[in-house]
């Protein structure tokens, strides 16, 4: 479903991603792991079509995602409907004036009946236990609440691929368990999950595959998740634990 071929990215002459190639199949759950500054967030932004690919290739469901594709408003809109992204910093993602509007925002961009929008929004509230926040102003919520609203607002669009950037930041243990279970359920429903995280031990049983990016911005592991977390020596050597 997702294929990255020889992707290299430089920002201000600094290499952020160096000749990265991998494949993610439909319905897979993948953890992107790496030390701080290795380029995880940049990679996720490429996967969401937020950055121009200068060198390399990104193929999503047989379609090449390049400048031409991104500049086509209709194609871009359909692409973003299919690929949901939860930002690392929720403050950057939440821009509406109530939590209800925040979760409904994406749905309002399509010609969907209001009753259907309302139903989906309340279903997302139930999934994340945030119904009591529906009339609150998103940016005044606590860190954990913001994160849950950000996940709900992405889920409301029912994306086929859910990309999360450090979803467990600022989250209490109970909510962590809730998000872990949610990701597992979504994966069972056939969604593709891609998640950049440092808390990978917490996600035992959720991910099938892991991609490790080194501090030199190269992929140094692309394989089974369980075998990776069993290999303590490799993780220590690469500044991951």
């Amino acid at each position: 479903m997702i294929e990255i071929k020889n992707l290299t990215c430089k920002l201000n002459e600094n290499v952020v991603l160096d000749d990265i190639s991998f494949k993610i199949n439909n319905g897979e759950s993948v953890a992107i792991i790496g030390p701080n500054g290795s380029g995880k967030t940049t990679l996720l932004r490429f996967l969401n079509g937020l950055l121009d690919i200068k060198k390399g290739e990104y193929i999503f469901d047989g379609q090449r995602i390049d400048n031409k594709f991104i500049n086509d408003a209709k194609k871009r809109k359909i692409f973003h409907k299919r690929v949901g992204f939860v930002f690392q910093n929720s403050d950057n993602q939440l821009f509406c004036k109530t939590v209800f509007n925040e979760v409904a925002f994406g749905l309002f961009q399509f010609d969907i009946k209001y009753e259907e929008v309302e139903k989906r929004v309340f279903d997302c509230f139930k999934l994340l236990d945030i119904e009591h926040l529906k009339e609150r102003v998103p940016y005044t919520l606590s860190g954990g609440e913001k994160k849950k609203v950000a996940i709900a607002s992405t889920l409301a669009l029912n994306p086929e691929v859910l990309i999360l950037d450090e979803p467990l930041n600022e989250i209490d243990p109970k909510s962590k368990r809730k998000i872990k279970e949610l990701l597992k359920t979504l994966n069972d429903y056939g969604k593709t999950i891609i998640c950049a995280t440092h808390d990978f031990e917490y996600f035992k049983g959720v991910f099938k595959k892991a991609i490790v990016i080194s501090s030199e911005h190269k992929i140094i592991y692309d394989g089974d998740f369980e075998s990776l977390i069993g290999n303590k020596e490799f993780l220590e050597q690469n500044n991951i634990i």
Partner: protein
Amino acid sequence: MMDWLKEKDEFEFKIRNESFIEKTLSSLLSLISKIRRFDNKGRGIYRIHEAFKLYFTLINIILLSLSFNKFYIMLNASYVILLIILLEDKDVLRILNISLVAFVVSSLIIGPSWFWGNKNAVLVIVKITISISLTMIMSITSNWHNIISAFRLIKVPNIVLFIFNSAIRFIYLLSERAYAILCSLKIRSVGYIKKPYNTLSQIMYNLFVTSIDMSFKMDEALECRCFSGEFKYKIYKRIGKVEFFYSIINIIIILGFFIL
């Protein structure tokens, strides 16, 4: 381990008045808490739909400015007192403070003309005080975002409303950041800053860069949620009994303008 880490320091601190940082911190906190108040759902008048409050307040102020009927002005004054009774204690104090200031200032400006035969001077002063009280009551009891949305009824484009809403959001988030930076400055400076005003420019620089970064990220967030250039959102707020009673009271006051 470094040797100096094992020993206790014996520096002498120059303790100086920190009023600059303290004042800036308290004003930032007050701004943050004012915006946070949006989430105070409360009861009664605080729950009334903002569109009702905005338009009835506007109509009342316009009719009040047109009228010189003492009974109608008294009716409005009674209405203000009724609203003040329904407010929480701290809000009552704020309204009374502001109304008192408005009363004193307008008395100083308009009051002396009474001695030169302006028989309406007292009425004008009362009208100014009532108008300011009405505006303040609306502002204090409402969510600013919903007040902005209420302008949709007079066909203000959604993009303009979105910009206003974003401005409030940015003020809140940047104030929180400025507060955090100032707190850190206060803690690390251990009570002594050589040139406290110079630190402001550095904080402003930091906020400026942050705001640019935030605006780019918001653009990406809009993009990720299939934004197509047209803002569509609804106020999730039901109209109930409170709005009904509020409308009846206001219609009686509006009728008072024509009948009295």
